[in-house]
């Protein structure tokens, strides 16, 4: 009796182990970075000036705009942190403000939709692979 019981239990445990392995593999495939690939945190000024850090979802924007729109027309450099972006300029229609003006995208009155980061986030590209890469400023 005991042997039979143990056999069934082993099979069950093996099935669970296989399930765990598949889940683990799935987690690996979904990327080990926590943030979504290419998420950019802007926090050079935000927290110093009493606002939450800005989380910029690069993936969301590239669905709607080609790189050239922001990186050429709006003069965002090809390196996170290379631009000095101030809220005053955004309100005047520069950088994010070229679209976030209530016409193309929500206006700057919706502070918290951009200033949505957790406290003390470092400014850089998050969610990317662990090279020394473009995350550095």
């Amino acid at each position, binding site marked *: 009796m005991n042997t039979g019981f143990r056999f*069934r239990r082993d099979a069950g445990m093996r099935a669970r182990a296989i399930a765990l392995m598949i889940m683990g593999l799935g987690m690996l495939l*979904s990327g080990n970075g926590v*943030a*979504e690939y290419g998420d950019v945190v802007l926090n050079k000024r935000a927290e110093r000036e009493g606002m939450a850090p800005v*989380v910029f979802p690069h993936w969301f924007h590239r669905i709607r705009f080609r790189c050239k729109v922001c990186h050429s027309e709006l003069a965002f450099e090809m390196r996170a942190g290379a631009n000095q972006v101030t809220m005053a300029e955004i309100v005047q229609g520069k950088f994010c403000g070229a679209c976030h003006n209530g016409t193309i995208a929500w206006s700057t009155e919706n502070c918290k939709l951009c200033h949505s980061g*957790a406290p003390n986030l470092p400014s850089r590209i998050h969610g990317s692979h662990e090279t020394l890469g*473009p995350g550095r400023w």
Partner: protein
Amino acid sequence: MNTTGWAGRIWRVALFTVSMLVLTAASGGDTRKWKSIAEDGLHDGDNPAATALQSPGEALKMLPPDGAGNQVNWVKALRDGYVKPRTTLNETTPVQTLDADILMKRTVEMPYVRFPHLAHTEWLECSNCHEKIFKSKAGATPVNMFQILQGEYCGRCHGAVAFPLTECNRCHSVPHKAAKEKP
């Protein structure tokens, strides 16, 4: 006793396999998963953005799959019309693409790199790379893998927002022999 044990074991394995197949079929064979905004480690869970903003999975699951980065084949997504991103904000901004492949041969024992201008210029403007990051003259820029891994040259985007640097063969795609055979 043993027979019952084995039968039970086979039955369980079969049941497990069938249920996994059903699960896979139900998801259309797409096993990609993305973290939600609330659990991405960046957003403040108490912030209205955590529930108001579009979740990556909601948008990206509609796009052609890829094994790395956002798990989206962005070039295919654009070419096959899955996404229709705006090209300009200002109507007078000139738009140009270039269909020219550059073969980069200083790759030591790795296959040569084929750089497709077309796939890049469908997204990017010439001035995004030229002349600041790459000189327009082929071969004039001292590109090397150490610098790329530190976020220079190709590494400005690849490893950050474009497919990551772990995808060696996508760039190092031309065997030395094949390049020799071509006139």
